[in-house]
């Protein structure tokens, strides 16, 4: 029973949830590519990193490994810094 549940979840996670997130990444990436100004790209990058955090949460369930949550925490924190850095740059050049 538990095994079946795990298979169900595993399949769902691996073949539905995670790919859906990957599609979200594609969308954000498309924004990054088609953007015609830098702030737009930064937004896209910020969203990308947010999705990455979500991806890690999902992946921790998919692989039954809590360690991926740790990465999510670090990534959430560090990508904040990245966004701030870009914003600083945009401020400085304008």
């Amino acid at each position, binding site marked *: 029973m538990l095994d079946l549940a795990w298979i169900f979840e595993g399949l769902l996670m691996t073949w539905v949830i995670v790919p859906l997130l990957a599609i979200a990444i594609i969308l954000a990436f498309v924004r*990054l590519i088609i953007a015609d100004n830098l702030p737009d790209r930064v937004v896209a*990058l910020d969203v990308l990193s947010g999705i*990455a955090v979500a991806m890690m949460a999902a992946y921790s369930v998919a692989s039954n*490994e809590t360690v991926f949550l740790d990465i999510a925490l*670090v990534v959430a924190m560090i990508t*904040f*810094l990245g966004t701030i850095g*870009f914003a600083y740059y945009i401020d400085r*050049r304008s």
Partner: protein
Amino acid sequence: AGHGESKGNFYWLIAVLPAACVVWLFTQLPNVANQQFPQLNIAWVPELGTSLSFRLDGLSMLMSLLVLGVGTLILIYASGYMDGDPKIGRFFAILLLFMVAMLGVVTADNIMLLFVFWELTSISSYLLIGFKHEYKESQVSAQQALFVTGAGGLCLLAGLILLGNAAGSWELSEILKSKDEILASNLFPAATVLVILGAFTKSAQFPFHFWLPNAMAAPTPVSAYLHSATMVKAGVYILARMNPVMKSAPGWTWTLIIVGCITAILGGWMAWQRPDMKKIMAYTTISALGILVFLIGIGDKVAIKAMVLFLLVHSLYKGALFMIAGAVDHETGTRDVNKLGALGRLMPITFTAALLATMSMAGIPPLLGFTGKELIYEATAFTELGATGLTVAAFVMNFFNVAAAGIIIYRVFMEEKDPNFDTSHVHEAPWKLWLGPIVLGILAMLSWLTIEGDFFSVQFFSPAMSAVLGKWEVVHLHALPPYFNIVPVLSLITIVAGFGFAYFHKSILAFSQRLTEGTGAYGPETGYFNFLDGMLDLAGRTAVMLQNGYLRRYLEFVFVTLVVLVTLPLWFSGALGSVQVTISETPRLNELIISAIIIIAAFYVVRFSGRLAAIAALGVVGYGIALLFLYFNAPDLAMTQFSIETLTVIIFVLVIYRLPKYQSLTSALGRYRDALLSGLIGLIMFGLVLFVTSIPYSRHISNFYAAGSYLEAKGRNIVNVILVDFRGLDTMVEISVLAVAGIGVMALLATGTFRGREVFPVIRSLIFQTASRYLVPLILLFSVFVLFRGHNEPGGGFIGGLVASSAFVIYVFAFDVQQARELLRVEPIRLIGVGLAVAVASAMISPVFLQETFMYGVWGTTELPAIGKLGTPLMFDIGVMLTVVGTVLSIVFSLAEQDENLQHENPHTEGGNV
């Protein structure tokens, strides 16, 4: 020449040394004659077959006597000639160096030892030719002589090595016994050619002869000693030495005969046209050297006999003549035969000496030169190699020698001087200058007189001749021809014709000089300079082509090399057929999507026209790779990749807006070419990855880590245990790399200039500032958490350090560097120092306190909350963390600080694009 005040000097006393050696050599003559050759053998560089082994056989004895005997006289002479020259000490030093070297050449039994001395003679010759170093002529001539003899020396080196290898021995005495082995070697011809090249350059044989007349730029004692009596004979010596073996080489005989002949005749032809006494002597020296080679070429017993005797004869008279030229120059201030004349009365002793020398040169009894010339004719007149031709050649050689002798004695000492030339102050040279020539003249006479005695013929001459001949022969020389044949007739004709020519030569002088100059344009010296210029030109072009200043070109060279070399094995093995490719399991959708995004983003890094857009795309590549790491179970890696990528972006951001906008600079063709090249590299790496992943992977070490990580190294996160324990040394160096990067950035910014594009001040955000105040302690707390759990879960000192530094970097962005510094309280460099010290200290605990090895992990026993056991790896990780914080902050602080200074000091400086 020196007209300085003669203060007198005692350098001549040094001559006692060679004189004493001469005496000792004389005591050894009987031993040599009994084939009891004195030997000395001391190991030197056994692995390279070189030993300090000397052997004094007949030929060595003859040469040594010349080197030391003439050397003795030269030292005395030089003491007079160089009197008053401030550099006389230097001169004697080099001269003595040469003497030792030359003595070494002729007495060495080990061929490499011989070569060592050989090269030393070249170098001392270089220094002596360039002795008057401020003159362009000296500089060029010295370099030329060294270049030619140096090149020849290298040929000789190769030849000697081949010879030694063929013979299986490096000792001359052994090599000469191993004739059969040497002849059997297929490298023997090559060895012979190389040895001949070495000898020809040294002994100024055509077409390498041109350096010798130019070498007359040296002070006259040098010309007398090196460039006539001794050093130039080294080439002849080596040919004579090798004669027993090499005469069997194909082409040896005729190469030597023809080259010797050309050299001898050419030298003679050039000699009589020169107005400079020293140049006349130089060319006749070339001529004489040609004769010696020519005789070795003929190679039969008579020829060798003639060769050995002529060698002695020439050294005696030519050494004397050079000294005389120097004496004349010393007293009159010129060596020009057109100006000089009638010196016989003013310098009677010198004249006497000159008379003796020129008579010997012309082959007139009672001087040794007479027998010398007799033997030459005897060698050619009865040879089986074409007596007529060779005899005619010998006649021409001898004719020019006689003519030159006549010109010197007649034009310098006997004919009227140039009326415009003032000789009122001219008087006899000091004794130091005439002693040498006189002694040599007397010796030439004495030896002729005693030539039939046992001492000369048996003890002195025969052993020398036997050495060249390769078998022991005792000969008895005759002062006068024992029986009548064509030889004395030839001798007589030569003398008459030669002197006659000397007397009348001025009438055709102008014409011949024009002829010589005309042909000289096609001569080997022109060739030499053309070669030199050509090579220098080629060198310059090569340098400019390769070192063109364009970094892109350098990189293209590298990448092309990479493509060629890495694909080389394919071409050699024939095909890809030998390579197996296995495709492992199918990728999942999300993996494919991320991979596709990485690829597209990578292309956009190339395509984007904005710099920041490109950096953003690069960030996507990095994040994408981090996700791949995540997918394939590398949590630490994913975490680090995310952090590093972000940090890189920050650094780019702090730097890049000062950089100019992109320009499209490369031509379309260039872009296609680069695209092709980079595509090839990509393909190669793709292929290598595919091939390598198709080879089964060995997990022997991975399994060891998995088994030992917790039980032996007390950590559950195997990656972290590898980093701080199994491969802790890597990490220790890695953090030093970080530290140095930090120091480097600080140093660059400290010494660099502060100019850049115009920037605008930042309006600080209240919201951000307030938020950071609360975030910073939380982030710091989190960083400590990451540090402590690293050993068992993803994290560790490195990530912890990055997290901690991010807190301070946030402060830089929210407030300014000053406030961030106040928050940190210490200089980042101190953190680096302490961090590294802690890391090293953790590694040193075991060796210092426990007699264990470096970095051996030691663990405490008490379990602490959230941390677990304390141990040196944890301490190491703390060191890592401190170093990382120090480095990141030293980089970010100094960059941001420069940024702020720029803003405050000169907000509107024009920098901008060019």
